[in-house]
């Protein structure tokens, strides 16, 4: 579903990671680990195509993924249902009801998203993934500001997604209780300082 080979990742023009390779098949979850600043977010953004890779290749089915970052992209003046309906329309799918059910948002459907608590807002952001109908999820710290119950909802949603033949690439520190998630520790891929004196290189 996703194949990354020999990928080099930059942040702010500085090479962070190099030689990152992994494969992700349907029904599989890959958890990215590593200390802060190692480049988890940059790697996810690179895979999502938001920033260019310095080198290497990323292969996946075109338009096959949905990306969720720290920010949820939720409009405070729209209601919960309107927020989800908007993304469903953008991705040309339906499933707003199911998504609200999975994250227990149905009682909040009329509430403006601005009046939600941080955790509820995060749940709405995660529910957005369900309405995209995309097989591959790229998740950046999805469990931030969720309570234990909501983490449980997320774990159930991701398990259901994997069982339905989806896949997920996620950066998280929390154990979601997934059966046999592959863990990729990013520290070994940390870019080594090139000793080269070549000038063009020094720009990167």
């Amino acid at each position, binding site marked *: 579903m996703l194949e990354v080979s020999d990928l080099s990742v930059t942040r702010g*023009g*500085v090479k962070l990671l190099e030689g990152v390779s992994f494969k992700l098949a349907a029904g599989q979850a890959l958890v990215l680990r590593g200390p802060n600043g190692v480049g988890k977010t940059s790697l996810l953004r690179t895979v999502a195509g938001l920033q260019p890779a310095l080198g290497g290749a990323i292969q996946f089915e075109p338009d096959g993924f949905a990306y969720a970052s720290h920010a949820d992209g939720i409009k405070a003046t729209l209601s919960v249902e309107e927020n989800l309906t908007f993304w469903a329309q953008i991705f040309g799918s339906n499933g707003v009801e199911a998504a609200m059910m999975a994250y227990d948002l149905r009682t909040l459907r009329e509430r403006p998203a601005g009046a939600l608590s941080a955790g509820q807002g995060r749940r709405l952001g995660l529910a957005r993934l369900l309405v995209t109908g995309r097989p591959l999820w790229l998740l950046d710290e999805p469990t931030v500001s969720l309570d234990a119950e909501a983490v449980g909802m997320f774990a159930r949603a991701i398990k259901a997604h994997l069982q339905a033949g989806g896949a997920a690439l996620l950066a998280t520190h929390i154990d979601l209780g997934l059966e046999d998630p592959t863990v990729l520790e990013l520290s070994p891929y940390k870019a080594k300082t090139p000793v080269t004196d070549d*000038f*063009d290189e020094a*720009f990167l």
Partner: protein
Amino acid sequence: MNQRPEQKRPAVNSVWEYANPRRFIATSDRLMPWIWGGAIACLVIGLIWGFFFTPDDYRQGSTVKIIYLHVPSALMAINAWFMMLVTSLIWIIRRHHVSALAARAAAPVGLVMTLIALLTGAIWGQPMWGTWWAWDPRLTSFLILFLFYLGYIALWSAIENDDTAADLTSILCLVGSVFAILSRYAVNFWNQGLHQGASLSLDKEENVADVFYHPLLFSIAGFVLLFLGLVLLRTQTEIRARRMRALLARERLQ
């Protein structure tokens, strides 16, 4: 590749090899004394000849001699933007860092040239037209060009990431060029002006007399070389500054 000794460097196969910053600095270091020497020689000859050894114009008196600053600077103001357009295109298409940095280096030089053209124009216009400023199409176009330079430079300095800044300014330069030309025509449409015809058109009728023309050529050559020298110098500085930033960023990462 870092062990490449100076003397064993392969011969230059294509012009793009100058896009290597190292090579660019080495080559421009060799060129620079000649360019500066030429610029000073041409300017000295052109300006002294123009100021002291040409007759006064029968209509304009000795004020006409400001032409030796006005025309070359106006010419370079436009050519500097044109050069930025070309280097921006090279950056967009081939992504050579030196090209983007050369565009960045040329902008302030072009800005100053525009300012010189505007100021000398005002000084010239005062005795001729009886006013420091008129909303004449040429004057107005130069004022607009000045604003374009300001915006371009402001955008460069506002963005931290060098590659992003290079991308944004290149596209701004492209779009800006189209709008600059549009503005030129719009301004012409809006007001037919006081300004005399082109001083250097190929049409002999409109051209300035030969006595004024020959020293003018020298001073134009001087301005071209001066521009070249300044841009090369500033590009070198930009390359080094950029390298410093890259090294600092890398150091922070360790």
